[in-house]
């Protein structure tokens, strides 16, 4: 089920607490890489933007949010990430699968379920994170964490920060 990657390109993942940090951080990472490069950002499929625009009182549960997040990642893989990798480019995916795992862990979703949901996603060659965030929570369309925080009516940023701190301590990612 894993998506085949036959390329000389490189996939790098980037996790942020503040959605507005993705582009500057991704550009910083890409400066260290030569050749054509690309950035794949959250909600390129516009699923979350459209859902927010519906203004329906119903809120999706964490599990539903995770399925939608996986659909967005698949869309990004199909249209942005895999084509760039096939051309030998370096692509920063921000956010990527680890943000999904972080949210799943915070929401109490089983790790096995998350692993299966994302089993189509190729592993990144290296993982980065932006340490810290602005004082004020951004609007729901700023990033996945902002969307989830608004949906679940709780500022989830400190919990995400702890999760990524732990990942960095274990050498699973490094700060940009």
């Amino acid at each position, binding site marked *: *089920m894993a998506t085949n990657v036959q390329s000389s390109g490189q996939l790098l993942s980037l996790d942020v607490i503040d959605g507005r940090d993705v582009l500057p951080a991704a550009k910083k990472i890409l400066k260290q890489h030569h050749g054509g490069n690309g950035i794949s950002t959250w909600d390129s499929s516009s699923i979350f933007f459209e859902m927010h625009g519906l203004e329906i009182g*119903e809120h*999706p*549960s964490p599990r*539903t949010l995770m399925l939608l997040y996986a*659909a967005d990642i*698949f869309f990004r893989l199909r249209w942005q990430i895999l084509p760039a990798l096939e051309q030998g480019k370096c692509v920063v995916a921000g956010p990527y699968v680890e943000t999904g795992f972080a949210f799943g862990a915070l929401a109490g979703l089983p790790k096995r379920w998350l692993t*299966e949901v994302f089993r189509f996603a190729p592993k990144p060659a290296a993982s980065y994170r932006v340490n810290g965030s602005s004082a004020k929570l951004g609007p729901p369309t700023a990033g996945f964490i902002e969307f989830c925080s608004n949906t679940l009516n709780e500022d989830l940023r400190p919990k995400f920060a702890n999760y990524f701190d732990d990942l960095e301590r274990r050498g699973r990612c490094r700060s940009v």
Partner: protein
Amino acid sequence: MTDLAKRLCDQIRKQGKNRGRLIAFEGPDGSGKTTQRKLFKDWLLGEGYDVVTTKWNSSKLIKPIIKARKNARSINQEEFCLLHAADFRHRLETEIMPALVKGKMVVADRFLFTALARDAARGLELDWLFHIYSPLYWPDIVFYFSVSPETSGKRIAATRSPKYYESGQDVTSIADPFQSYHQFISRVIQEYEALAVIFKFIKIDAEGPIYDQHMTIRRLFQESRERPWPEWNEEAICDWARTAPQAREVVVGN
């Protein structure tokens, strides 16, 4: 098991024979399941039951997103699957399980098995599909309306031309929607037939008279009322209580 999950399970159990039941109507397009679902629902209402109907791909929140992408023909098999799974999960958590806990009858016009049959026919692995849809609240009865690909095709063609995804043109690459539909629905029916054996569906001969089918459904439903609540549904209730805020509202509401 959390305290909330225990309370929800106890609430279902203490209703005994009067507990809510989930009855799924499954089968290919043109099998007549919607006709039977309507007849059954009317009968249930006449018998005094509180009935909730849930239809495939119908959540207010996710249906518009799927519809826009179907119209644009822009989704592939995996996205198709994940978006439908999100729609299903949302309805399960906000419509189906709350109604069941409150002791209502839930009549589902298509359930999980629609996704399994269609997505497997699109070439996705059944094992991945089960994970995507888990944990699942299993229906008390699944009525499977069995028809041949020819009958299904004829019934659809009598009223309209099959749509792009309905006819499986995204996977068959056949330009003619009718030809594509025939090939795709044959695969879907094959998957349904296999699922019918594994999950012990109640098979209804959907080529038979409408009235006979309806009477069979009534009889089988009445017989099923003797069966206790399937304990394996505890897993879905526990998960719902742990992760979905709606679960709390149901208990608080009572």
